[in-house]
Structures are given as structure tokens and as C-alpha cells.
């Protein structure tokens, strides 16, 4: 539940700009690549992760 950070406490949320969107997506992509390198093509681990 780390996603329920401070932003969830307020009534308003800052509108994201195009730059923020592009940046966020690039970051998520890097993060996924790093995760992918750790458990490369390991189906058992992938399933375990999905079941978590």
C-alpha cells in the first residue's frame, strides 16, 4: 500500500504534463528491464511473482 502516499490525502491532484507522462513511462520501462534481468526467462519465478 505504499501507493497510498500523501497524494491520496488531498482533495486535488496535480494534472500531469506530457513530459511527466513520458518520463514516468521511461522509468517504469527501466524498472521492468531491471526486474527482467534478475529473473530472466524463469517461468517458475514468474508464476510465483504473479501469485504473490
Amino acid at each position: 500500500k505504499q501507493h497510498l502516499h500523501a497524494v491520496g490525502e488531498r482533495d486535488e491532484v496535480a494534472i500531469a504534463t506530457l513530459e511527466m507522462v513520458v518520463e514516468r513511462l521511461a522509468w517504469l520501462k527501466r524498472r521492468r528491464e531491471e526486474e527482467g534481468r534478475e529473473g530472466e526467462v524463469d517461468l517458475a519465478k514468474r508464476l510465483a511473482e504473479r501469485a504473490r
Partner: protein
Amino acid sequence: KGWDDDEDDGEGLDDTDDLDPVAERASWKLRELVRVKREREELEKIEREREEIERRRAMDPELRK
């Protein structure tokens, strides 16, 4: 993933791509062919209908505007 007491996560259905690239592309090709055929037929149908209306107008001056 823990929300809404979701127990059935559909694990039996694997959406991993490129497990069998040749078969995956082949089945896409069939779907695309069906779509292309369907699109052609729809367009032909509209054209036929319009021609039919024009033909009737030409035959019957009463129907002309």
C-alpha cells in the same frame, strides 16, 4: 494481487507472446484476411445499394427530386 478478495487470477491462461512466433503470426494472418474480406463485402454492399437507388431513379421520373 490482493484486492477484492480475488482468488481466481486466471493463471491457467498464459498471455506470454512469442512462444510460437510462426503459429502466432499465421493465426493473425487468418484473422486479418477475414477482416479484409469483410470490409470489401461491406463496401460492395453499400455501392450496390446506391447503384440500385440510382437505377430506380433513372427508370422512374416520379422519384427524381
